[in-house]
């Protein structure tokens, strides 16, 4: 087919994925938080409140869009786009199955990290352009946090890359197939320090509780997004949920074997065409559920404590663990050769 047509179809697939994902995640968040708080969550619109999010989206679309007089118009207009588009772009590298990837990039992981680091720029644009001190504070906090944790996040993902031998996310998933000693699945979750470091860094990168100070509701009202309303706010909000999905998807890909089931050979799964993507999405949603439980429970870490955590603890630890993993891999290679 025409290469441009394929490209447009792929783009539409990513967009559809992002939108559907956003809708489902918002509903899931409200229901999960509701059950955690011993209450019901949305119930009125549609059976069990299923139509709540579509109605919310309709509401956002039909809302008036007031732009405060003193904002920097170009930045104010561009900022939601700069925040939204990188999230969209990150979807194209996710491996839904052996063959189902929107774009099978050889540097998939690096691409995702690179693209996600554009988001703090958008947040800063939003905060600055709003001409609102509260927004500015929120934006400054967000940028400080996300810039700090980009390096540890990459460093924490590198042991996995070293073990798999490739930055291509599909290869990383395939490297996790099979079992060790016929019982333990060969998932990289056993590399627990890398998992913990990546988990914490990712929580901060995506602005999740307990590190959501960019949007700390009880302090900064809505943080950098205070002056936004209607679909501009919708874009910012949607991008936050997309980041959550991408982070969870990365966790699943890097540490939980991607679309694979334990003890089931990968080829058998791939034979059933639609099963791997479904498994992938289910696993991602389980991880997201766990993230939501954290969101509903833990208090927020203060900004300076969090930055101290990043610079003084996570960065050195991730470097150290990288070295240790390298040594261990070399040792295991030597042992394997020597045997």
């Amino acid at each position, binding site marked *: 087919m025409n290469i441009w047509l394929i490209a447009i179809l792929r783009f539409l697939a990513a967009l559809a994925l992002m939108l559907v994902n956003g809708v489902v995640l918002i509903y899931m968040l409200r229901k999960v938080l509701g059950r955690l708080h011993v209450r019901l969550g949305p119930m009125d619109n549609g059976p069990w409140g299923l139509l709540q999010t579509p109605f919310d989206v309709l509401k956002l679309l039909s809302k008036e869009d007031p732009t405060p007089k003193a904002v920097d118009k170009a930045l104010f207009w561009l900022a939601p786009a700069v925040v939204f588009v990188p999230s969209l772009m990150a979807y194209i590298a996710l491996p839904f199955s052996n063959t189902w990837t929107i774009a099978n990039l050889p540097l998939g992981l690096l691409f995702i990290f690179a693209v996600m680091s554009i988001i703090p720029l958008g947040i800063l644009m939003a905060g600055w352009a709003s001409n609102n*001190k509260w927004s500015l504070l929120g934006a400054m906090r967000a940028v400080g946090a996300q810039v700090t944790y980009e390096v540890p996040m990459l460093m924490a993902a590198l042991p996995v890359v070293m073990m798999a031998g490739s930055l291509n996310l599909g290869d990383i998933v395939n490297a996790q197939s099979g079992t060790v000693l016929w019982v333990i699945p060969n998932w990289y979750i056993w590399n627990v320090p890398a998992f913990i470091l990546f988990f914490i860094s990712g929580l901060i990168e995506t602005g999740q509780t307990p590190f959501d100070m960019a949007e700390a509701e*009880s302090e900064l009202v809505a943080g950098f997004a205070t002056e936004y309303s209607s679909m501009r706010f919708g874009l910012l909000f949607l991008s936050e949920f997309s980041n959550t999905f991408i982070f969870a998807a990365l966790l699943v890909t890097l540490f939980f074997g991607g679309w694979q089931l334990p003890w089931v050979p990968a080829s058998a799964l791939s034979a059933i065409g639609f099963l791997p993507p479904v498994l992938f999405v289910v696993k991602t949603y389980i991880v997201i559920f766990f993230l939501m439980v954290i*969101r509903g429970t*833990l*208090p927020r*870490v*203060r900004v300076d404590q969090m930055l101290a955590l990043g610079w003084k603890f996570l960065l050195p630890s991730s470097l150290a663990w990288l070295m240790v993993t390298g040594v261990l891999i070399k040792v295991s290679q030597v042992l394997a050769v020597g045997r």
Partner: protein
Amino acid sequence: MHTPDPTAISGALDAIGVSAGVEEVAKLGVVCRVAPADSRSTLRAFKEGDLAFGFLVDLFGVDTGEAVDVVYHLRSFSRDEDVYVKVEHEYGANLESMWDIYPAGLMPERELAEMFGLTLSGHPNPRRLLTTDGCPPFLLKGSEIRAEDEVRHRERQVVAPENLERTVSSLEPEQSPHAAPAKMPLQEGIAAPSAVQPVDLPAGLHRAPTGVDELQTERLILSMGPQHPSTHGVLRINLEIDGEEVIGSECHIGYLHRGIEKLAETRRFTALGPLMDRGDYLASMHAELATSLATEQLLEVEVPRRANWLRVLMGELNRISSHIVWYGPNGLDAGSMGPFLYVFRDREYMLDILEDITGGRMMFNYMRPGGVLRDITPEADGKIRKFLKFFNQHIDENDEILMGNEIFQARMKDLGVFSKEGALAFGLTGGNLRASGFDFDVRRDQPYAAYPEMDFEVPVSTDGDAYARCRVRLDEMRQSARMIQQCIDGLPEGDFTAKVAKVLRPPAGETYAAVESPRGELGVHLVADGSDSPYRMRYRPPTLFALQAGEQALPGTLIADSVVLMGSLDFVLGEIDR
């Protein structure tokens, strides 16, 4: 509570050359009357000399018809004595601030000067507290609130365009509020530096923000405004920040000022209940109880034993529910949504119990002079027992989920530390004071109702930081549950109220009654003149003092901390603004 020795007081004052009239007034205590020129030296003698009355309980005014009586209510904890220093000022005279002797008077002085038409000198922040320019001095008898115009008659309420400018000018003599004040935009609300007399601030007190520095452009003045998810009530704090650190802070209150003290002068004594309910709306029982106690002291009525036990029962239920309203949002300020809802489940159950007994969920209107309004029903009795069963288990869980969380501890520890002397100097009472190591509880030390018969402990901590305040309040909740159990098990038979007339006319006199509300010592100073409504009712809000202490403790913290610090002080704007 002992009566101080009048001769010792006269002796001490004669020694410094002040002629004072010291006499013992029935139902009140020892009153010492001095001239305005001697007020500062008198207060200094009271504080620093042998007399050692180191604690300012309250500072307020009474319009006697010819002059304004400024009353300083002082207390000596070591001897357990209270004394009243009354200074008579002419209308429109100048009040000299004595904040350097008793820092607790910082905000009450501003309110006094504004409400009685006096000017204020020597104060670091001599601005109106509760009302804006254009409001007359409300508590003067000459400012009438005509009863019919208060609430009804919509066609008579006109919003004139000139009423829409809201400025808050200084109360200093040179800038008399009666002259045209300098128009300051409400957004900034900062006194022009040259107009405020610089006062040497001792260590530990920080000046209110003085404006953006001309050379450095890093400092912002942020208005944590009246609409904010985390200021507990309508409170506005102007924060001067440098990056994330708070350098200066100034609290603006008065958004919830309804004139409770003035309205009390038009209400009958039995109708004071609903009015006081709406002061500290979370601790309505305690506010009503304080008023009832004061009225009973004036009437010299004896309350039956069962009524006293019911008062304790209701008060402790109210205490737990008030602490829950503090605890849940405290977690929410820190970012944690779960505990908020878990504790509110218990509170809903408690409010159901209270509705069973009193008929209202928040505005109880239950305590009356002479006893309580109604007896407890058997269903309510059963519900209370059931509540106690699951509450004791839940409180441990709710304690663990937030207080045991390291993130929460990291936020709260070493935040807003008040030393014992600092807390006493600022007039803090209640949980805030006990967390700083000073063991004073009105229920145990100046008992009222059935507390002498109750077996309870008073939790005290010595850390003085926000975490200690949380810990003290959580332990208080457990002690309250213990007391409720004792009340339910041991409720004596008898009447639930003494026989009092429907329209009460206490004989002329004045008295003070204090209760231990969840926030501190809630006192009501009642002046009666023989008619069916009070002549002057003063509501001593325990958290006004906590607020001014918090305002002084804010500089040096981060913005995120400021929210948590103010939350840990547990104030309610309803009683601060009245």
